[in-house]
């Protein structure tokens, strides 16, 4: 494989799979906050 091809393959994987990882982490973190907020509301 040429150096250009390797660089682009790595960059593409980093951007797309990295984007997926960030999206999942954000959803889990935000979802957890929402769940806790809802629990507090119910406790009242």
């Amino acid at each position, binding site marked *: *494989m*040429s150096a*250009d*091809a*390797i660089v*682009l*393959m790595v*960059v*593409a*994987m980093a*951007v*797309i*799979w990295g*984007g*997926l990882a960030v*999206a*999942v982490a*954000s*959803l889990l973190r*935000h*979802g957890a906050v*929402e769940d806790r907020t*809802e629990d507090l*509301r*119910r406790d009242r």
Partner: protein
Amino acid sequence: MGTTAGRATEQPGEEDRRGAFSSRRVFILAAIGSAVGLGNIWRFPYVAYENGGGAFLLPYLVALLTAGIPFLLLDYAIGHRHRGSAPLSFARMRRGTEGLGWWQVGICFVIAVYYAAVIAWALRYTFFSLDLAWGADPEGFFFGEFLQAGDVQVTADVVPGVLVPLALVWLLVLVVMALGVQRGIGVTSLAVIPVLVLAFAALVVQAVLLPGAGAGLDALFAPDWSALTSASVWAAAFGQIFFSLSVGFGIMITYASYVHRREDMVGSGLVVGFSNSAFELLAGIGVFAALGFMAQANGVAVDEVASGGIGLAFVAFPAIISEAPAGTLLGVLFFGSLVVAGLTSLISVLEVVISAVRDKLDTSRRTATLAVVVPAAVLSLVLFSTTSGIYVLDVVDHFVNQYGILVVALVSMLVVAWVVRALPGLGAHLNVHGRPRVGTGWRLLTGVVAPASLAVVLVLALREDFAAPYEDHPTWLLLVLGWGLVVALPVLGFLLARLPWRAGTHLDGPPPGSDPAEPLHAAPATDPAPQTRHDEGGRA
């Protein structure tokens, strides 16, 4: 309070009646299952290779972020806010737009009819992989022995080798759809999507370890930067993202309507959008690594073996499987992945139709499933298990998949953004529980950038089809099953919109109790008038 098509408003047991996904995870897996289909495996790698290789990834990412994900969020917002199938959601947004929903339903029905045939072929080829049944001539085997393709005409000569797996596919789909939203679609997605990812990952590992794989990956990723100045390359990127994400023809509206009202639809959309692209990239690596092996084995350049679509799956891959070490495993993984990816997508397009029928008529899940799946299966068996099936499929796929989806998506988007002017309300709905928040940028992307890019894709495709008859097929075939279907579907859609809704259907605006800002378990604000109840599993 909005008007209703009967004496009562939305019922408190509406979620029981329509069905719902049990959790965000189930919805996300179902949406990924819908988005990840045959196109991810056999379309993306070749489109990328043909349009600048590694350089294509730049317009592809731009298209994903500026049109794909914003459009996906628009579909989610429409379905999640209005809590109905495509026709019901459009009717609730504005009564006169209901026909757009039925137009989308019609497109889904047609796609289901032919999509099942390709899954049936892949199912048969999964077993052919065990003994390499195609022998030394995969192309002759596919068109001759397997499909028994004759002249370009519509015939009634049945091919049993296609009929049996096609009937099996429809039987399986019938069972899944009859089980309902959670027990059928949800449980199936939970079970098979992880298997699909693992199977395809195993295929990719096996493919990149083949001799010559590097040459294939070089062909795919070596950048041709001059391609970035070509409008057709940018149009190909937007087209790939658009077709791949299952946006604009009712699927995501329908699935979003089954999601709990307090869910983060923006975060879910980002996960689905990036998952779809992650799978495409994986497919590109696996397919081109295998093509590199084939090129080296035959002593030719990769461009001589590179192909996409049916040619890649049923001609090139069998040749690779025959020559590769542990080829049988490669074959089972490849065709098995096609079957699973295709089935989860087929389920989603059928759900668009079933959901619309259930919303419009007062009918149980099982009755609606039978009313939709049985006619679709009969049509599919009659049209595609004959010696002329491949030609019919090719024409219907090209026109309905290309123009049908493109036009309805473009019209729907323009109507929502500029006629109904619903984007501010839909954005506010997404922001109640969604993160990151959507704002002016999202409205600009969905109201201007995405429609403009779709219009360019449409014009370029039309220019190509007007320049020469598609694949040199006979004019009558193109007019009847191609352009004829493309024109008939919107007409049929707006005729269906004239039929009355079942009694008690809330039609103006989002139904009561659907506001995500309201506390959970709030007392229903509507008249709980008695109504025949049909649970989602079909228990009347």
